């Protein structure tokens, strides 16, 4: 198992956010973290990304506690894509992608760095934008640029925080399609937070359903997305049927308490 979580608990002050999370994630899979607001999805993802420093021996990547990695080494193993691009001073698209080479760069940029950047930008069809500033790009383009930056780290784990939230449906599909291909072709472990359960069901190999900081259910989409589970976690009655492109879930009405 490439990434292991062995009893991760996180609390802010006295308030527990995550309680004893355990999971094992293999390479080459797309894993979706789902759950209602406040279930701890973002905290889980940020702990996995070491943005929030996890407790010792809780998060393991490639057989080693992430706490024991040097910052640079961990950055070569796993990359993170934030939900929103930063509002700082903008770089060009090329500079942004090149920034993904940061863990490998001492000071000068090598030909190898440039080749990798070029390959990724071609793959994501970003080459024609290379000299545009990132704030001049559309939302979908920007999301792809951020993914490209993460890919430039040549990671084995890719962690994404709601990569489709700001996108129209065409780009949602494009991005998720891309992520699935990456997982398949390059044996990358892709972990992402998704709100849309149907998309999660359709593109994930594995779904982790969180409720109040605990793993409520985990497994293949059809194992996790059952009317009973969704009723208990989200508090709605749903009808689930098998469509031509995966599961179709229709929310009927809220559960009356």
């Amino acid at each position, binding site marked *: 198992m490439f990434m292991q979580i062995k009893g991760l608990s996180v609390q802010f002050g006295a308030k527990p956010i995550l309680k004893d999370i355990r999971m094992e994630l293999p390479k080459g899979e797309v894993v979706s973290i789902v759950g209602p607001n406040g279930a701890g999805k973002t905290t889980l993802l940020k702990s996995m990304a*070491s943005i929030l420093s996890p407790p010792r021996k809780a998060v393991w990547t490639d057989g080693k506690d992430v706490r024991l990695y040097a910052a640079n080494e961990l950055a070569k193993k796993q990359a993170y894509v934030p939900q929103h691009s930063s509002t700082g001073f903008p770089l*060009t698209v090329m500079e942004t992608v090149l*920034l993904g080479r940061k863990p490998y760069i001492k000071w000068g940029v090598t030909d190898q760095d*440039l080749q990798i950047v*070029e390959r990724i930008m071609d793959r994501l069809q970003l080459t024609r934008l290379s000299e545009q500033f990132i*704030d001049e790009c559309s939302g979908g383009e920007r999301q792809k640029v951020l993914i490209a930056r993460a890919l430039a780290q040549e990671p084995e784990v890719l962690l994404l925080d709601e990569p489709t939230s700001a996108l129209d449906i065409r780009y949602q599909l494009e991005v998720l399609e891309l992520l699935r291909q990456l997982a398949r072709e390059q044996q990358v472990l892709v972990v992402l937070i998704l709100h849309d359960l149907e998309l999660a069901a359709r593109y994930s190999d594995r779904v982790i359903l969180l409720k109040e900081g605990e793993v409520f259910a985990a497994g293949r989409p059809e194992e996790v997305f059952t009317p009973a589970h969704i009723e208990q976690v989200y508090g709605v009655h749903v009808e689930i049927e098998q469509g031509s492109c995966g599961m179709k879930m229709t929310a009927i009405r809220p559960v009356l308490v």
Partner: protein
Amino acid sequence: MEPRIAQIYQGSVRNKLLLLGGMLLLLVISTLYAISRGAVEIPLIDLLGILFGQPADEMTAYIVYEVRLPRIVMAIVTGISLACAGAIMQALLRNPLADPFTLGVSSGAAFGAALAIVAGASVFGINLVLSGQWLIALNAFVFGCLAVLIVYGIARLKNSSTTVLLLAGVAIGQLFSAGVSSLKYFSDNEALKDLVVWLMGGFWGAKWQVLQMLLPLVLVSLAVLIKYAWDLNALGAGEEVARTLGVKVKRIRWVCLLVVTLMASTTIAFTGIIGFIGLVAPHISRMMIGTDYRFLLPCSCLAGALLLLLSDTAARMLLSPVEIPVGIITALFGAPFFIYLLVKKRRDYWA
């Protein structure tokens, strides 16, 4: 066939290097011009004679070597130091309004200097400036750092929000200014005069002795900072992303903040408060050369040096032999130029 990324990259690097080279050339030309001009007209022949060790007249040689040159070098070093400090602070806080002034370094340093002047006047008597010059500088530095620490500490209490940080900077700045004002109010005449001279800022009476200390300090600081260029770039993408790119955010923040505070407050300690450069030079540079700190940092330094050297030369020349405070000049031609760039460039960084 579209140009390949490597070509585009190399092209942009070449352009940036050309721009930096051009600015360096401009700085050299400005320096030569500044050397050749002053209240005393020195013909080119004599000037060359002096620079190559065959002075025609001893007094003229003294004027060039001990009056004009140190002053010019001081203006350049100060420009570099303030602009660099501004650029780094803006990067660390990801805020376009950050500079030594808004973070309270200037007012902290001013208060430190004022305290040394007023308290030192009683210890050292009237010869304060000779015996106490280093004391003034040291105190300016200590209080400059203190101001930053307080400001930064307040911001940490509130989750490092940059808005809080800037507001804290403004508040601390006001507090120290009030401190300076009250010292001015309560101190006696002579100490007050020192204070007024110091607060006005300028390069009058620049000495090689001071530069011997300042120059290495600024160069070493610059070397340290430029080493962190990639980390600063990563920080521009947001603190979280920077961490996942392998940047030790906390350490970078402290090291860089300490280095620029050291640099800025030591410079301020010797020149007095010179506003505007720390804010404007980095922005002008960003508009010219982009946000990559590998290029932005040298560009800011050159822009700051150029701006301040030209301002000081103008301060010397405009009403020669009467001198104008250099701060007036920096604001007079810095502000309109800055506004012009703001209006003309359609992109804005403040969104």
